[in-house]
């Protein structure tokens, strides 16, 4: 009986961790693609918020989750175009413009919410898609095979991004412009076009991250993301610019968050330590990196605008 109980808690914690990882994974992969091309985007949080709001608003007013997802992606894509114009065409400083996008997203999503929705209301949420047979396996089914389509997609993105970056000419070009834009340029690869595309893809994924978050919850609130966009950026460094690494980071952070919240609910973590334990995901992520002691360098041209004489 108590064994059963423990297993239930364990696997449901796993499930919660995977749910919490989903936005990190989308946003982290997106940020990674941008960084691979040499562009740092500190605006992820803002893009996530904008997409989350517009996806939510769409779901609220049309009732269609499909449309909501589409709108969320489009908003991300649009912000990618804006960010691409700012950084690639106008050569703006990437650090500031990212923070500008963050502030704009934070404020504008809040503004739109207050003007158009006001009092929070629920929309329908992303339904759980149970994988036939697998979802029936005791415990394991709950943990791994009863998630929303968004969650599965996030994890499927990992090999897809790997293929994109490693096996396609597009991905090779992205890596080249992030590493040595002069060289890519000298071979006729358009640095601007590559970076622009990487930014658009990256921001679209950030948009999907916001969409996944809001549709998993079924409700929007100002600053719904609560810093997740920034954590996603950190996880790119954790993952050493590799898709599986970013996934490992997202899972680690999500699982620790899930474990802490579950242990609080179970009373394993005393209430007096509630805020101290909330540090755990951050501390453990740093600790894991210390232990891994990886010496991976960022893409050599990261944050460096490129222009010819």
């Amino acid at each position, binding site marked *: 009986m108590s064994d059963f109980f423990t297993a239930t808690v364990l696997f449901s914690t796993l499930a919660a961790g995977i749910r919490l990882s989903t936005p990190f994974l989308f946003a982290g992969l997106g940020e990674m693609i941008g960084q691979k091309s040499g562009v740092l985007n500190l605006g992820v949080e803002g893009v996530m918020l904008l997409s989350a709001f517009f996806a939510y608003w769409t779901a609220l007013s049309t009732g269609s989750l499909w449309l909501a997802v589409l709108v969320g992606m489009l908003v991300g894509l649009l912000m990618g175009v804006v960010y691409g114009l700012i950084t690639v065409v106008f050569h703006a400083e990437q650090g500031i413009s990212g923070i500008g996008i963050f502030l704009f997203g934070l404020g504008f999503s809040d503004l739109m919410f207050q003007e158009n929705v006001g009092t929070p209301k629920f929309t329908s949420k992303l339904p759980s898609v149970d994988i036939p047979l697998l979802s029936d396996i005791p415990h394991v089914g709950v943990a791994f095979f009863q998630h929303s389509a968004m969650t599965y997609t996030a994890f499927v993105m990992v090999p897809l991004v790997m293929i994109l970056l490693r*096996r*396609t*000419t*597009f991905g*090779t*070009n992205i*890596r*080249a412009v992030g*590493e*040595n834009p*002069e*060289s*890519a*340029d*000298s*071979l*006729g*690869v358009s640095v601007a076009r590559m970076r622009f595309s990487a930014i658009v893809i990256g921001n679209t994924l950030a948009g999907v991250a916001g969409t996944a978050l809001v549709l998993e919850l079924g409700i929007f609130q100002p600053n719904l993301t609560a810093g997740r966009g920034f954590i996603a950026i950190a996880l790119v460094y954790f993952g050493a610019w590799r898709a599986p690494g970013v996934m490992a980071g997202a899972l680690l952070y999500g699982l620790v968050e899930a474990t802490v919240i579950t242990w609080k609910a179970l009373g394993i973590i005393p209430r007096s330590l509630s805020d101290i334990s909330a540090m755990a995901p951050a501390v453990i992520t740093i600790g894991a990196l210390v232990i891994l002691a990886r010496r991976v360098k960022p893409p*050599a041209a990261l944050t460096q605008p490129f222009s*010819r*004489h």
Partner: protein
Amino acid sequence: MATDTDIPMLEMRGITKRFPGVLANDAVDLTVRSGEVHTLLGENGAGKSTLMKILFGLYQPDEGEIRLNGEAIEVESPSFAISHGIGMIHQHFMLVPTLTVAENVALGTRSTRWPLTDLPVVSRRVEEISEKFGLAIDPSIEVWKLAVGERQRVEIIKALYRDARLLVLDEPTAVLTPQEVEEFFGILNEMRSSGHGLIFISHKLREVVAISDEITVLRNGRVTGHTTPAESDRQQLATMMVGREVSLAPDRPEIEPGDSRLVIRNLVVESDRGTTAVDGLDLDVRAGEIVGIAGVSGNGQRELAEVIAGLRDARAGSSVQVNGVEVVGQGARLSRDAGLAYVPEERMRDGAIGDFTVSENLVLVDHGSEEFSRRGLLRFGMIRSHSQELVDRFNVKTPGLDTTTSSLSGGNIQKLILARELASGPTVLLAAQPTRGVDIGAAEYIHAQIIEQRGAGAAALVVSEDLDELLAIADRIAVMFEGRIIGIVEIEDATRETLGLMMAGIHEGSPA
């Protein structure tokens, strides 16, 4: 050779290019025919690279005209140049270190399996090219793992892969070993006979004489003369370049060496890849002598230099003493405080800070000394006058002391580093490839300076792949092979031939 000899492959007419404070090219004319190796000769900063970058579309000329096979073109970008059969091997490699050889080669070309890459197909063509021109390389290896000579090959393959007919080679041999240069010239001959046009830049007159069909000399951005190897020998070429007599063999007064200042015992060092790079090396360098280290690159010279400079740790039991101070694994500060001056091999990376001004780089090592800082503040007056003195003394060509160092020509950056290192009056001088990429005039000066330090009682260890250089300045030459010194030759007994054999690991009576 080629058929259309009356229409040159390339004509550049009246090319002018200005940079802030510098007229890099001043109405330059250049004509290159197919099947010819055309050498551009000139001092550091003469404008050779600039002219070539204009040809390749990396810079736009302020004035002038370019004709390719008789047709006027405007080279607006490198891709335009590539699509018109122009290839360029840059002075500083244009490779993406994190990509494989095949990926580097294929970059920017159409893939047969678009959107996927077609690396097997690329690799096959790379192998074909390798075979045809004798450029052995593994296409699947990542470029950062390659030695310099191999990277050079990748650059050539890149150009050939794109069917370049006119190939610019900007100081391709600067980083090659003598053996590699031989092979490389084989490749060039192959290309020449298949009708390619080749523009070759080098500061090594021996090579220029050996390979060129035509020679154009640039000075201060202008063409100052044309010649051929048949008409001019090395000495004459040197004079044309520099505008004065240059002595190719420096004066080296006899000196009786003193005590050992640099003592290396049982040195064992690992390379970055974890292999044993230096394998039980012993060496003494005495006051008043210059010891040359010869060897094919990759035989542990780099690691040896880095350990002495305090930039790399050695295995336990190793000992390196600078003026009696044990420096292994203690960091660069200690080595320097013990009296070492260090001229690193990769000058752009380790020797100077590109974004710093000339005068900042000149006090990079000593900025904290009493002379240049007092009560926690830098003394700009002292720093400026010191810098001005060095710039004058070492003839560093710069628009000013506040000029950003990266905009100086390669040779002038090297002079700047030497100026800084030699000015401190070191007791032990460690110089790796001190004249790589430096023009004859500057090399002459640098050699004279090193010899002067020797005269002042310094112990000098000069690592170089240029045997001519070592033969000119060293008292003894130690040859490194597979991490050991396989033999030390007194200068009187040293010839290119014996050294060459030793560098290949062959040594009479050598137990190896």
